[in-house]
């Protein structure tokens, strides 16, 4: 589903990703962990070309997105993304936030888009907020709307970039709950997070990144209980 080969990314002189090789199977939930500055967010943002790729290749469902001829907008409709800072559109109501891309990009009729939007809001438990503006929502509610907005495009893959890092502690649970539900339904997910509980419980595979490399990867139980690499051990001893 996602195939990453020798992915490199430099910002100026600074090489942030130094050759990443990862593959994600359909319906798999891959959790990326690592210290800040390890390149995990950059890695995630390369998967839908929010960052230009310096070198290497990324295939999304067989299409090489580093190929100049690839229509990246079409790829992005298949790859939903949820941001740390939510990035809801403040000038639009919740339901308008959700409907915008289906209306303008997929050209879905308004009635259908609205129906689908309300259904997604019910799914994330916010049906009564359809006509509210993002400003009036709590952080957890905003992030759930952001998830619904991404899902409205009916993506095949969902990317989560530290989705709970900007939330007050008591709101983390409600967002993780929605993500858990999504995983259960068979969504292919790549999640960058500091929530080790989530990684352990929901992840099919955990990738530990440090210094622009994938240091270690495996099923959560192996990574958390029996890490092989020194750097993994050192990191886990600090966060667990």
């Amino acid at each position, binding site marked *: 589903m996602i195939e990453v080969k020798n992915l490199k990314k430099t910002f100026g002189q600074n090489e942030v990703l130094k050759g990443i090789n990862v593959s994600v199977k359909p319906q798999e939930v891959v959790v990326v962990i690592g210290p800040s500055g390890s390149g995990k967010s950059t890695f995630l943002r390369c998967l*839908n070309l*929010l960052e230009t790729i310096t070198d290497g290749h990324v295939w999304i469902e067989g299409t090489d997105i580093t190929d100049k001829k690839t229509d990246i*907008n*079409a790829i*992005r*409709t298949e*790859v*939903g*993304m949820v*941001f740390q*800072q939510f*990035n*809801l*559109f*403040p*000038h639009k109501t919740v339901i308008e936030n959700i409907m*915008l*891309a289906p209306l*303008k*990009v*997929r050209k879905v009729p308004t009635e259908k888009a609205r129906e689908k939007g309300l259904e997604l809001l019910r799914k994330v438990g916010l049906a009564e907020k359809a006509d509210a503006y993002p400003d009036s929502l709590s952080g957890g509610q905003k992030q759930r709307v*952001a998830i619904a*907005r*991404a899902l409205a*495009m009916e993506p095949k893959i969902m990317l989560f970039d530290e989705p709970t890092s900007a939330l007050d502690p008591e709101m983390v649970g409600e967002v993780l709950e929605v993500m858990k539900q999504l995983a259960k339904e068979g969504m292919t997910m790549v999640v960058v997070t500091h929530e080790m509980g989530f990684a352990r419980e929901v992840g099919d595979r955990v990738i530990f990144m440090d210094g622009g490399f994938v240091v270690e990867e495996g099923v959560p139980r192996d990574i958390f209980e029996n890490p092989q690499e020194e750097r993994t051990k050192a990191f886990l001893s600090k966060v667990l």
Partner: protein
Amino acid sequence: MDIRWDILAEYAPFFAKGTLLTIGLSIVSILIGSVLGLAIGLGKMVQNKWLAFPFKAYITFFRGTPLLVQILLVHFGLIPLFMGETNGIAAAITALSLNSAAYVAEIFRAGIQSIDKGQMEAARSLGMNHVQAMRFVILPQAIKRMIPPLGNEFIVLIKDSSLAAIIAVKELMYWGQAMQGQYYRAWEPYITAALIYLVLTFSLSLLLNRLERRLATE
């Protein structure tokens, strides 16, 4: 200080005509300046620095030189070059528009760049192309922020249109000077002109305040 109402009455029709011309000059220059300014602002934001250079140079020139100099350059240089003879109204509109465009360009650029870059990223991540993201996400938010500075710029432009008197465009200030020249009186012509400018700029700022309030509650 005695006021000579008789000469004010005599000049009233000229002040009226002058005011209309001032309003006309201002409106046309605001419209042309805004459209041109949007184009220049977008041009300056182009990533390629060679493509962006002419737009930056334009803004630097028109913000960095006096409007009076620009008016004279346009009136005695540019307009005769294109039209074969001088034309005060064309020169005034051209100079005011070109000058205003430089400021409007900066207002547009600042407005667009003040929107958090996460907004663009979110729009693009949903599959929108750059134009769609601009149109549906960035500009609606940016325009609200542009209104106060744009209002300022329009008020400045109304006042600056008085410089057109220098090239004998028969707008408000021209008649003020004519009246002073004829009667050697200072207070009557210039207080009158000042009050009329005040009414124009104050009405515009009231209008803009209302627009701002309406957009804020939307």
